[in-house]
């Protein structure tokens, strides 16, 4: 395929997936279409992302042999730290998102987007938020507890939130963290103003940002009673932070501090490696139900919970209901980056019978952090971090 043909193919696929997302947003299921599109995107990526092609050959699953989206090899999310996984030439890159502030290779996942890819992601961002975050179709003032995209251009979550402001926000919607950090008092004053004026608010931010804000509110002994139609969306979790709060406790706390109902406190799973996001789905009806919330992917995303120790012809096999496994996502909106990603999140399937319409989603239980057995043998990291170099510390011999 020539470069021009590849470009056409990439644009065509982006448009096709965007059209699929828009139709899915309108309620069409499209399982068969998803299958076809996924395999088409897979074949395209096999031909255009070299490390991905090597990987597929390595695991013995290529477009010639894979007949279902389930068989598409899942790229470990870690691979984005080491390799440029982009289905076009570097000059097509319009934006690169990173999982952390550093661009040091190996330290941070890097996800490249072309213009067409960014447009596709924006479509996915708006379409996944509509039914879960804005099911009432109500416009709100969106206040985001992060710096604006200009300050943190590498953060994919902030990019998505900017698009939510553009699509769903009332005047006055903005990012509230400035160069000097988050001014809690100013934020509180603004929210209090919304409360007085009866302007519904959507508070968006990282889970840990909210923890800090609520801690501050408790210290100041202030509470909010946000106007009807207000909501709160937290992204991510509390990975590696000093303080861990259970999901249920967070929802109750947030509802209490902001004066919103629990059903309006929504968590979002986003990854630098995915163009789509996965929101909480709340079972309609009685809150007494045993499971009332779970992560339910939008229709252009499929999440499987797999156990790498159980191997089938399509690689690691999905676990049964209730069993714990690693989350793996098929994201059609990843036209330019590998379509199937294996995360480092541990989770399990959750099924809810929502008034005769069974729904199957998943919940995240944590990170697959390694209880890696460590011997007295040295790893590359130890060696790299060792300040001791040959000759410098000869005095410190084995028996020093």
């Amino acid at each position, binding site marked *: 395929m020539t470069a021009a043909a590849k470009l056409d193919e990439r644009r065509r696929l982006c448009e096709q997936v965007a059209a699929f997302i828009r139709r899915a947003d309108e309620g069409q299921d499209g399982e068969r279409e998803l299958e076809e599109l996924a395999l088409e995107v897979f074949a395209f990526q096999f031909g255009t992302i070299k490390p991905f092609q090597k990987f597929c050959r390595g695991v013995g699953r290529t477009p010639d042999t894979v007949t279902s989206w389930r068989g598409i090899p899942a*790229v*470990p999310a870690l691979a984005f730290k080491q*390799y440029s996984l982009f289905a076009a030439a570097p000059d097509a890159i319009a934006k690169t998102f990173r999982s952390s502030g550093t661009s040091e290779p190996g330290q941070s996942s890097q996800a490249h987007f072309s213009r067409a890819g960014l447009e596709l992601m924006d479509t996915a961002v708006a379409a996944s938020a509509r039914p879960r975050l804005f099911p009432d179709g109500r416009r709100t003032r969106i206040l985001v507890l992060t710096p604006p995209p200009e300050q943190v251009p590498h953060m994919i979550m902030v990019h998505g939130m900017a698009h939510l402001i553009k699509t769903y926000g009332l005047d006055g919607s903005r990012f509230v963290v400035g160069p000097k950090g988050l001014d809690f008092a100013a934020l509180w004053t603004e929210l209090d103003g919304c409360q007085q004026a009866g302007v519904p608010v959507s508070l968006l931010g990282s889970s840990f940002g909210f923890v800090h804000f609520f801690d501050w509110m408790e210290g100041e002994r202030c509470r909010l009673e946000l106007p009807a139609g207000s909501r709160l969306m937290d992204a991510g979790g509390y990975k590696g932070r000093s303080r861990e709060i259970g999901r249920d406790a967070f929802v109750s706390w947030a509802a209490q501090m902001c004066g919103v109902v629990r059903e309006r406190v929504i968590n979002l799973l986003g990854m630098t490696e995915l163009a789509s996001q996965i929101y909480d789905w709340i079972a309609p009806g009685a809150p007494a139900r045993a499971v009332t919330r779970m992560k339910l992917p939008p229709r252009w995303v499929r999440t499987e919970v797999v156990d790498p120790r159980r191997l089938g012809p399509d690689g690691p096999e999905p676990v049964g209901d209730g069993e714990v*496994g690693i989350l793996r996502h098929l994201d059609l909106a990843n036209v330019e980056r590998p379509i199937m990603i294996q995360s480092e999140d*541990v989770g399990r399937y959750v099924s809810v019978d929502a008034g005769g319409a069974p729904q199957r989603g998943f919940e995240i239980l944590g990170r697959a952090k390694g209880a890696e*057995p460590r011997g007295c043998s*040295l790893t590359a990291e*130890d060696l790299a971090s060792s300040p001791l170099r*040959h000759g410098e510390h000869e005095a410190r011999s*084995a028996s020093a």
Partner: protein
Amino acid sequence: MTTSATRTVPATRDVAAACWLPPGLRESIDAMPGGSTLYRKRYDHDDEHMEVMFERLSPEALGHVIAVLRQRRREVLARRSVREIIDVLDRAAAKWLDPEYPPRRDTIAEIAFLTGFSPEMVAHAIEEEQVSSQGPHLLEALRNELGDPEFLDGFRPNPRTGGLSRAHGPGLVGAIFSSNIPALPHLEIMRSFLVKSACLGRVSAGEPIFLRRYAETLQELDPELASCLAIVYWERGDDECENLFLRSIDYLVAYGGDAQINRLLTARPPTLEGTWHGHRLGFTYVTREALAAGQDVRKLARSISYDFTIFDGFACLCPQVVLVEDGGDTSPVALARLCAEEMARWTRELPPRRLDLAGASRKQSFAQLCMMSDTTEVIAAPPDGSYLVTLEAMQRFEPSGGDRYLRIAPVSGRADLERLVGPLPRQYLQCAAIAAGGAAALHHELRELLASWGVTRIVPPGIMGRPSMMWHHDGVACLGRMVTWCDHELVVPELLLGRDVDALISDVERDPSATIGAALT
């Protein structure tokens, strides 16, 4: 014992205990109000779990243990001959080498459950370690480091000093153990007893089984000797216990990572001597002579693969990288393919450790990342992750990190060896396996080079994980370092050379007044 969700939780007495005190000491500690606090640690694996009982001694109780150990050393160890002590250790080794020894089966099952190592690997480790724990090996180890082991029993003629010499071990050896090699920590109990020192060990929570079982074997064979040993535990960060321990012992043997060793180096009293076994690096070097036509390359591959298999690569004794010279009749890639076949064979004989979900995921991801690389050729990566063989040109020495990851780097010769291994921190270098064909001069050149870089053990491939008791462990005469010498010099130095010193010594022994005469003659 191991229980599963379907099995009942065992009664307290069935829970494996990590700590061990001799019976008399146990009674006195139990009688001390608040002397010890028992608690269980739970080890989960999928839907199975096992509980192990640990105990924390109060500072008073630990102080009492230390006082009793010192007393028992004077009453028991100091009065036994080295050979008597070796005889008991030899019989302990024989017990553990006997497949029918009743505690063996449970011990293997428990260690396998707690560490994840396969039962086959744990059994193999016990075999390997107990073979070199047999009496003749212990005796040779003493000879290797002290000359005559009987220096430990009393003053003995020492022709080199022209007098008599005597060696004393420390009163109390404190040992802090690690868990990466199953069933190994008894080594330090043996070393302590060989120099007639009592031993106070802090067991590792990662492998809390073998020490107590070994102590029970000693108790079964010789309760008096066993009364010179105590196995205790405190949590990492329990500075009170650790400081009391460090202040009370006469010699420290510590295993652990850099952080642990550095912390202990800072926390110990400055005068406390010790032996430190921290992070180490090993590698294998194959010259083109070893790959010449007529060489048994299949056997070489099998030996190299064994070194990467044993302890699943999680031991300082395991190689990290195989450097293979190109230009031989067998190319590096051909050797790599043979190694992959042999890794598969070893996987069947010594199955790899059990993986938890996260571990399996990480291992799989790691192999997949290698597949994406332009510079690394994946020779073999079975989907179950049981081993991994890759070939790559190396700019700098990059350890594989173990876990049966056999990492091969082609090199063009000695200059590459120097470039890759020479700059490594010398305190980390430990074992090197060398396959260099039959030319003695080449072997000589290589060992001089490696020793100058800080390598402390050179072996042919296939025995890296099986050090002899005689090895100067991490470059140190571990037994020799523990003892303090007293030399009774009977003659002036100028008489030492060119004379029948033995006759002189016996003369002087018969008539001590001859000392002066000898000096004046």
